């Protein structure tokens, strides 16, 4: 199955793009804030400037009007002073008239100061006020002289001076009128300027409102085109994905929205790929697949299952899962479903399935629960094991055939060859006897090979059965020694047994098989005239049986391996010593099935001790060993 490269690449790309991403959306948002703000600042600045200008004009007008009022006051005083001077000229010239003149002119200096203050910014007007002040003071000084002359009785001199005063007063009034006209003109200009400023303010406010509206519309358009309409595409695509509709084209640009859209599209591609992979797997897998809800209702099935059970597409919709199986005793729909869950949960179990036409077939069933939010579901995998069952049956028949049909002729051959080799059929020549011995040896090898293969077959199928009983170890040892005695004699090996009264709980034939195998190996690998001995120990609840030889020993690295199938210590004289390589593996399986263990201690070059443990009998009995074997 290919690796899910695309998904991985999509994620990787997304990450890298994210690292390089310019925050364009932030720029757009800044623009949305900055444009109205800049305009508002400009607008407020313009308004403030116009207001300031209007205020200044207003202030100037006010001062001009004040100055005009003061000039009018002075003018009236001058007119009054002129009348008083006329009385003096043509009247009695008494003192009260002088005092009146002084009263009339007394406030003029303060009025002048007021005018000077109001017109302080106008240099030309200030000069005129200064001249007026100087001329007025000169006139008052002449009046003082007139007063002195009147006091001294110089009437002619006084009259002369009074005429000068009159002239001076006329001149003063002319100056006042000129100044007043100038001030009035100034005030009118300022008034006009104020009006103009006010008008401009109105214009600016109206334009500002209009421009604000235009800016708002433009920003709305900009936001819509650049943000909301593009976001809407992304949102619409999420809905379209959920509704299984084709997606809209990708959004343009290079901002976060475009990135979001790209990541979303990549995700959709990855999802689609995962979905297609899942679909391909589900539809093409050779096993039947079912998804059922927590109550056993079938939610989904794959084509293999429909074909296996002979249903048409959709034929399993709304059915209960128990309808696919042959009910066991006392089962109803609910208990059948709960039994399936109990037996097949995460492990394979066998069950008889029932097809649409009522035909039954054996299936291997396994079940895996899973949750989607709060809802429980079960995934059921069904394998049609009809073929496997048939193969198993054929294999069983074959094993049975080998067990019986092959053994009988082999026995005939071996017994005959032994009889021939031992001279029981009458004396034969030495070459014939030699050949008969060789043929006998090969028949024995062939028998061993068949037995080993059958044992291995049983071990693999878990059918290695034991017929355990409390048995005397001495019998086991005796039988084992009997079996290998001929071979030992032939090899020139001395066998040393041991006496014991230990009783173990074991299968006697299998125990003998282990002992014979170990003794056979020991004899095979011992040097001529060597000794093979059996040593017995008791350790905790186990008997430890040891077969010691004086052979070449087992290299350390091989000491575990030799108990695996087809592993043998490599030998130089391999032809002579070879076997199937299954013997020790079978011994290990037999010993372990008894609850014991097996191993080898060895000093390379000076011999090995193969040992194994067997559980001692648990309850002591007084039955003699002889009775056990007698039957």
């Amino acid at each position: 199955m290919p690796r899910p490269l695309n998904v991985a690449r999509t994620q990787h790309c997304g990450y890298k793009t994210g690292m390089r991403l310019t925050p364009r959306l932030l720029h757009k948002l800044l623009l949305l804030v900055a444009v109205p703000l800049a305009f508002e600042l400009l607008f407020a600045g313009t308004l403030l400037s116009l207001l300031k200008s209007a205020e200044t004009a207003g202030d100037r007008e006010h001062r001009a009007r004040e100055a005009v009022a003061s000039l009018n006051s002075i003018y009236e005083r001058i007119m009054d002073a002129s009348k008083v001077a006329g009385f003096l000229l043509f009247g009695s010239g008494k003192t009260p008239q002088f005092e009146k003149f002084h009263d009339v002119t007394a406030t003029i200096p303060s009025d002048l100061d007021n005018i000077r203050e109001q017109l302080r910014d106008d240099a030309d007007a200030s000069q005129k006020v200064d001249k007026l002040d100087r001329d007025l003071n000169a006139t008052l000084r002449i009046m003082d002289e007139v007063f002195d002359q009147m006091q001294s009785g110089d009437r002619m001199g006084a009259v002369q001076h009074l005429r000068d005063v009159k002239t001076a007063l006329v001149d003063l009034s002319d100056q006042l009128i000129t100044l007043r006209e100038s001030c009035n003109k100034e005030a009118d200009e300022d008034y006009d300027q104020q009006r103009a400023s006010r008008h401009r303010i109105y214009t600016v406010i109206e334009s500002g409102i209009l421009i604000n509206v235009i800016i708002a519309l433009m920003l709305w358009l900009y936001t819509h085109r650049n943000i909301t309409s593009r976001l809407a595409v992304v949102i619409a695509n999420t809905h379209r994905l959920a509704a299984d509709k084709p997606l809209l084209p990708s959004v343009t640009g290079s901002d976060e929205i475009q990135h979001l859209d790209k990541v979303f599209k990549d995700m959709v591609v990855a999802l689609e790929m995962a979905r297609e992979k899942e679909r391909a797997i589900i539809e093409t897998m050779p096993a039947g697949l079912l998804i059922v809800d927590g109550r056993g209702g079938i939610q989904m099935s794959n084509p293999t299952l429909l074909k296996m059970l002979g249903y048409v597409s959709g034929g399993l919709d709304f059915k209960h899962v128990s309808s696919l199986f042959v009910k066991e005793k006392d089962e109803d729909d609910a208990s059948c479903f709960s039994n399936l869950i109990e037996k097949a949960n995460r492990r394979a179990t066998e069950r008889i399935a029932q097809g649409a036409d009522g035909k039954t077939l054996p299936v291997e069933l396994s079940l895996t629960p899973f949750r989607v939010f709060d809802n429980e579901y079960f995934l059921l995998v069904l394998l049609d094991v009809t073929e496997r069952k048939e193969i198993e049956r054929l294999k069983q028949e074959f094993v049975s055939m080998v067990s019986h049909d092959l053994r009988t002729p082999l026995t005939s051959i071996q017994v005959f060859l032994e009889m021939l080799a031992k001279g029981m059929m009458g004396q034969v020549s030495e070459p014939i006897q030699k050949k008969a011995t060789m043929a006998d040896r090969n028949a024995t090898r062939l028998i061993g090979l068949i037995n080993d293969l059958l044992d291995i077959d049983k071990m693999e199928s878990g059918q290695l059965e034991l017929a355990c009983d409390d048995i005397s170890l001495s019998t086991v040892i005796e039988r084992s020694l009997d079996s290998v005695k001929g071979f030992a004699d032939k090899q020139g090996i001395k066998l040393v047994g041991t006496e014991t009264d230990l009783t173990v709980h074991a299968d006697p034939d299998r125990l003998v098989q282990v002992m014979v195998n170990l003794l056979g190996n020991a004899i095979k690998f011992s040097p001529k005239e060597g000794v093979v001995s059996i040593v017995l120990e008791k350790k905790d609840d186990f008997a430890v049986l040891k077969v010691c030889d004086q052979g070449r020993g087992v290299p350390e690295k091989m000491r575990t391996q030799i108990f695996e199938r087809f592993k043998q210590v490599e030998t130089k004289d391999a032809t002579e010593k070879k076997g199937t390589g299954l013997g020790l593996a079978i011994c290990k399986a037999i010993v372990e099935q008894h609850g014991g263990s097996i191993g080898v201690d060895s000093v390379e070059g000076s011999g090995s001790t193969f040992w194994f443990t067997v559980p001692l009998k648990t309850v002591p009995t007084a039955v003699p060993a002889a009775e056990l074997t007698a039957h």
Partner: protein
Amino acid sequence: MANLLLVDDDEDFSETLRDLFEMQEHSVMVAATGGDGLSLLSGNSFDLILLDWQLPDMPGIDVCKQYREQGGKSRILMLTGMRDAASREAGKAAGADDMLIKPFTLDQLLGRVQKMLSEAGEPTA
């Protein structure tokens, strides 16, 4: 010198064993079917019966069972290729005294026969 009955359908096997036992100076009768075996058993007395596991007309254990049901006391050695515990139990239950698994060596056969003949004087289980 003992009277032996061999019930086996394999002619070569029967002949080899008959030759062997006759060399041992035993008297051997041979039957090729379970039915023949049972009829020989009903009319003769044997010290040891060697009975094949699988016969053409009936399983060896059925022969064994019927013989025991008829009150036969002779010792029976079943010759079988079946090495599993269930078969062994079935043989024992049918009344066989011992079982020898094929293929066996000459020594194993002679040893077992000798042992059973020496025990033949004792009451059977």
